[in-house]
């Protein structure tokens, strides 16, 4: 017996009707729901429709708490419902649900008064990915003890699998921290852009705010550039970039898990 034999008429089937009706809050219940004395099929089917919507919007609220705090419960719920009804999960792994929510927020006219909202959502989405990312032991300075100065600049680092950078033209880390309970709510006077560094060297997800040179350095390393090229990229971004300090931070912060001397560039 093979599963495909059940598919031949599925398009006219109860399951297809149910799938359509579940995400349509105004639609009629699917055909074929039995009537029972004293009960209303609409109300009975609405239990499922409600379960689905509450579970999906609840998953978004759990993943994007700072976004919710910024816009308030009512606005968030309305945005989450609009998103969920058009973008149901594509996988049974609810930990991955909402990957497209930041882009959805960016396109949302009603959120145009809070232009930094989508970047806060990107930061929060990255935190969940980091929470579930693979475990890996960070590289220590001792691991590179025997590496000569020339070879050092040719090293390519493998950064921690949880590590992500979220670059923003807004002070995204400051705004997130204030709405995640990590910083007191206060008026923001410096609206310079910030890059968020999200990483989970052990079990706790950390959100850091590297200065522009360090952010450029990490972005370059993450792209697979040699250490020498990453340092040059950082210096181009920020003249006071200090390679020794940032190399030490790579180890003390648990940001890298491996390094290997680059072979000749393939180009």
């Amino acid at each position, binding site marked *: *017996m093979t599963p495909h034999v059940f*598919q031949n008429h*599925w398009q006219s089937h109860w*399951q297809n009707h149910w799938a359509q009706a*579940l995400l349509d809050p105004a639609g009629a219940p699917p055909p074929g729901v039995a009537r*029972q004395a004293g*009960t209303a099929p609409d109300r*009975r089917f609405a239990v499922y429709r409600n379960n689905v919507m509450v579970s999906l919007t609840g998953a978004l609220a759990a993943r994007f708490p700072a976004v919710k705090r910024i816009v308030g419960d009512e606005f968030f719920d309305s945005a989450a419902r609009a998103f969920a009804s058009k973008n149901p999960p594509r996988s*049974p792994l609810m930990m991955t649900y909402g990957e497209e929510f930041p882009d959805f927020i960016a396109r949302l006219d009603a959120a145009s008064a809070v232009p930094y909202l989508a970047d806060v959502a990107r930061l929060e989405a990255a935190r969940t990915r980091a929470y579930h990312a*693979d475990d890996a032991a960070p590289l220590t300075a001792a691991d590179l003890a025997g590496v000569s100065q020339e070879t050092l600049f040719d090293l390519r680092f493998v950064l921690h699998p949880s590590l992500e950078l979220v670059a923003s033209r807004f002070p995204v880390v400051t705004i997130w921290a204030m709405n995640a309970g990590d910083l007191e709510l206060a008026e923001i006077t410096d609206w310079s852009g910030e890059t968020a560094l999200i990483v989970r060297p052990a079990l706790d997800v950390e959100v850091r705010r590297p200065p522009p040179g360090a952010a450029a350095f990490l972005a370059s390393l993450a792209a697979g550039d040699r250490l020498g090229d990453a340092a040059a990229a950082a210096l181009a971004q920020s003249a006071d970039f200090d390679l020794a300090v940032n190399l030490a931070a790579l180890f003390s912060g648990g940001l890298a898990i491996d390094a290997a001397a680059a072979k000749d560039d393939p180009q």
Partner: protein
Amino acid sequence: MRRARAPLQPSRLPPNVGLGFKPEHFAAIAAEPQPLGFFEVHAENYMGAGGVPHAQLARLREHYALSIHGVGLSIGSLEPLDRNHLARLKRLCDRYNPESVSEHLAWSSHGGAFYNDLLPLPYTDETLAAVISHVDEAQTALGRRILLENPATYVRFEESAIPETEFLAEAARASGCGLLLDVNNVFVCARNHAYDALAYLADFPIDEISEIHLAGHFETFEADGSPLLIDAHGCVVSGAVLDLYAGVIARAGPLPTLIEWDNNVPDWRTMRAQAAIVQERLDHATGGGAKSAA
């Protein structure tokens, strides 16, 4: 005709009370040995690559029997099983070697979308064939006998032609799977669909039961004022459900019994107190023979 194949690993949880594991209880659980038969987790919550979920589950696994309870395989769908998801479930089982693996007589995926709810199916020859085929495929992939759980439902289908107990019995007979009897689901369905819970339980294939689930439900109302029960897993198990449970145990003998409390999750002391109440019913109904695992 059944294919010849390697024997499936059976479900072998200890016949005592277990609790659904919630991460917020981890510190309290780790602080001292818990007098529980086992812990149960939802498979999908542990399908990430690493981090806290696996660190906690690995610790738990060192000390307790484990039940992996899937909520996303969509066994009751007419579509083929999601092979990627089945492969993830296999990796999880290979990693933790649980005493039991279970899933639901329900569907949750269709047309590439996942609805994150346990949705009902009509009971027909067609859906029965699909369920048997899916259970067979899952068991073959996992190398394990899985348990299939009776659902909590709010609607019935006009085209349903097979009673639920008969549907489950035939699915178990044809696929070789075991059954997970959720007594709260029986109570909720009996009330919602106006039938007798005791009659349902009398028809249930009792020899196939390898685990029992208990949970709390809440009561809402129809437009005409008649009650509608919602299987919400957000409060203590009702006295009526405990009475049904005691009747099942008196007939079937001691069985691994899980208390599910997934919403409004209380502190660990409250969870333990609920487990103690159920363990007492379990011991009493079986003449006090079953001992708690330390």
